[in-house]
């Protein structure tokens, strides 16, 4: 240390006031002992010690233990000029710590080498700075401060992350290192422009902007620029947003939109969106084709412009309804083109926030088929009516035929028999045996013809009369049938075996005719037996019952089984068994009309079994 570097100060001199009344704490301390030699009021006020207390302290006493080494180093260094230093921490009497900046200057005080110190408490300022720094640091955007020369003066943590450089690698470097070479010329131009006309602006929003990562990759960016005026003139604060994700999302969106619109364009169905102002917002290829327009002719035009007069169609009012009430609607619409062509479309209208979405399907060919089917059906119905009429006609003819038969054929027979009997009554007693036999033969023949006519009529009735369907109790039917046959059962020994019968759906009187016929057959063909057995049984199947009427009578040769159910077909002579051959034909007709089948099994002299089926009434819980 050289004494000549210390400027003298007179304690009583002009500086005294400056010292004592200065708002900044000031003191002078002994460089050797570090003892306070003089302190001003502001120091007393700031640190909480009285002047007397100060004089008992050394500089070390207002420092924290860990800072003392640094202090001693500093004391060693000679300070000829005023020196501004920052980053110090002082301890007050109450133990609290303040951040300070100090200006120090070595002086001779009362011939003692000392140092004059002015203290500025920057605790508050530091705290503010710290907060500001925190804000900058924690910003999700990269923030850079660039000076007029284009040098980077400040970066935050996000800048390091974004560009891959450490803070140290960036500070004082030209901004160019963060700009891809292909943009550097344009960037220079822009940078110059900015400094010529500094104002807030953002770039990258409208055009693509890229930064250069340390690894050479380009990063899509958006940048906000703010001019900042500070002591060094002005610099620019750049706020940088990495829009990689946003860009990717956007690209995905564009891709998805393309994908959807391609998909929609490939659809067979028309797809269109009509805006609330009745303008076409979107049409796919099919919709345009269905409307026989190009997409350009449709999109952004109103429906009325494209298809004048459409507003008076039913379809339009449905669309208006859908738009107004926000309710979906579906309809088949015949669309008439300006040239008069017509096509059918199935329209599904769906309200959407923009307006209405219309899905349209060309159903012209379906409609055509439907129409043809309808025509065909009508034709068919017509044909059925004609055929029915023809059938009715022939039925009527048949009816009037059998009516005539019943009247006109029976009357002469009655007359033959009537007059024959009158003849017999008048002259019978005078006739010889042979002539009496002749009269008897004529009588028998006429009676037989009467029976044949009756049978023929009954067959015709069975075939043509109306069926009155109801649930028929077959147990009752069988009892009644046997009861009706009581004349034939006189003097017969018959062992009956009759199952309990189910109820069936059918015409009671017809079914009774079936049982009477089959039972009387069984009775008739067992008349040679001492004891006849007749069994009536039923077997229940899935959908039907199989009924069986079995006897132990004469039976028949199965060779002729096919003739069994024919009209006037007989397998036995009248002398063996009487009959006209109409009974089984009637039975077969009735069973067939009930949707059943009938067959028989037999052996000569070994009885016969007649089987027939009837539909089963299903239980409700089956």
């Amino acid at each position, binding site marked *: 240390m050289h004494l000549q570097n210390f400027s003298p100060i007179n304690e009583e001199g002009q500086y005294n006031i400056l010292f004592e009344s200065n708002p900044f704490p000031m003191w002078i301390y002994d460089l050797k002992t570090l003892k306070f030699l003089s302190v001003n009021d502001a120091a007393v006020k700031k640190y909480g010690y009285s002047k007397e207390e100060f004089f008992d302290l050394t500089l070390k006493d207002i420092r924290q233990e860990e800072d003392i080494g640094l202090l001693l180093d500093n004391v060693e260094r000679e300070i000829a000029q005023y020196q501004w230093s920052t980053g110090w921490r002082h301890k007050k009497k109450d133990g609290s710590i303040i951040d300070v900046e100090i200006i120090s200057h070595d002086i001779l005080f009362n011939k003692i080498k000392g140092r004059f110190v002015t203290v500025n408490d920057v605790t508050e300022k530091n705290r503010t700075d710290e907060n500001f720094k925190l804000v900058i640091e924690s910003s999700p955007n990269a923030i850079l401060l660039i000076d007029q020369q284009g040098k980077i003066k400040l970066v935050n943590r996000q800048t390091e992350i974004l560009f891959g450089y450490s803070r140290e690698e960036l500070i004082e470097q030209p901004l160019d290192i963060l700009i891809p070479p292909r943009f550097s010329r344009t960037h220079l131009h822009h940078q110059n422009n900015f400094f010529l006309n500094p104002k807030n602006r953002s770039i990258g929003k409208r055009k693509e902007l890229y930064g250069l990562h340390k690894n050479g990759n380009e990063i899509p960016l958006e940048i906000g620029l703010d001019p900042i005026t500070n002591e060094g003139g002005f610099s620019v604060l750049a706020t940088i947003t990495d829009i990689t994700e946003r860009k990717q999302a956007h690209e995905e969106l564009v891709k998805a939109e393309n994908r959807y619109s391609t998909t929609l364009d490939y659809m067979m169905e028309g797809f269109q969106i009509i805006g609330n102002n009745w303008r076409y917002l979107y049409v796919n290829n099919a919709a345009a084709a269905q409307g026989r327009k190009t997409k350009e002719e449709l999109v952004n035009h109103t429906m009325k412009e494209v298809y004048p007069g459409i507003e008076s169609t039913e379809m339009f009012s449905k669309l208006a309804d859908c738009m107004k009430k926000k309710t979906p609607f579906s309809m088949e619409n015949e669309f008439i083109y300006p040239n008069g062509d017509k096509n059918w479309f199935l329209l599904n209208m769906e309200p959407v926030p923009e307006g209405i979405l219309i899905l349209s399907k060309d159903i012209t060919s379906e409609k055509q088929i439907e129409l043809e089917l309808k025509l065909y059906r009508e034709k068919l119905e017509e044909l059925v009516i004609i055929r029915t009429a023809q059938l009715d006609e022939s039925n009527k003819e048949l009816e009037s035929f*059998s*009516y005539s038969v*019943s*009247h*006109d054929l*029976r*009357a*002469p*027979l*009655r*007359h033959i*028999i*009537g*007059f*024959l*009997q*009158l003849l017999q009554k008048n002259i019978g007693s005078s006739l010889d045996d042979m002539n009496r036999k002749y009269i008897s033969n004529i009588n028998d023949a*006429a*009676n037989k013809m*009467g029976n044949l006519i009756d049978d023929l*009529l009954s067959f015709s*009735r069975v075939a043509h*009369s109306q069926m009155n369907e109801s649930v028929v109790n077959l147990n009752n039917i069988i009892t009644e049938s046997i009861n009706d046959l009581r004349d034939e059962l006189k003097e017969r020994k018959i062992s009956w075996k009759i199952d309990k019968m189910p109820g069936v759906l059918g015409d009671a009187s017809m079914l009774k005719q079936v049982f009477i016929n089959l039972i009387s057959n069984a009775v008739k063909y067992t008349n040679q037996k001492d004891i006849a057995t007749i069994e009536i049984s039923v077997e229940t199947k899935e959908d039907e019952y199989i009924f069986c009427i079995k006897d132990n009578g004469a039976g028949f040769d199965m060779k002729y089984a096919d003739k069994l159910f024919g009209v006037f077909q007989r397998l036995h002579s009248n002398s063996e068994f009487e009959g006209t051959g109409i009974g089984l034909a009637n039975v077969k007709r009735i069973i067939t009309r009930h949707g059943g089948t009938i067959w028989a099994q037999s052996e000569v002299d070994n009885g016969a079994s007649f089987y027939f089926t009837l539909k089963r009434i299903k239980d409700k819980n089956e």
Partner: protein
Amino acid sequence: MNELKRILLAEDDKNDIELTLAALEEFNLANEVDVVNDGKEALDYLHYNGKFTNRISVNPAVILLDIKMPKVTGLEVLKQIKSDENLKMIPCVILTSSNQEKDLVEGYKLGANAYVVKPVDFQEFIRTIKQLGLFWAVINEPPPMSVKQK
């Protein structure tokens, strides 16, 4: 018998008339039978028209009506009788060869009092006719206007 009961037989078939009369003869009823040969004649008889203008003024005790007759059928005659205030109380028996259900139903609907199918067997026929004659002409108490004291 001191009452005059008439039986009207409306029948177009000569054989049937003859046989019917023969049957009634067995019960000595033949003389009381007036025969008409078709429906129109039957109506004329009942309304004292045409050749019946001067016939004795009494309604028959029973009318035996054949269904199938020329001009006016038996059912039509029946219909007119049953809708005529003066005639509707006369018992009418449908006497026919037909056992067709349609005719039967129609006959009863129009108000026939009986429906008899002429049996092919003559004995039976005679029995039937006799019974009819006996019942309607003798046993049954006819409505007023059908009887005239001799």
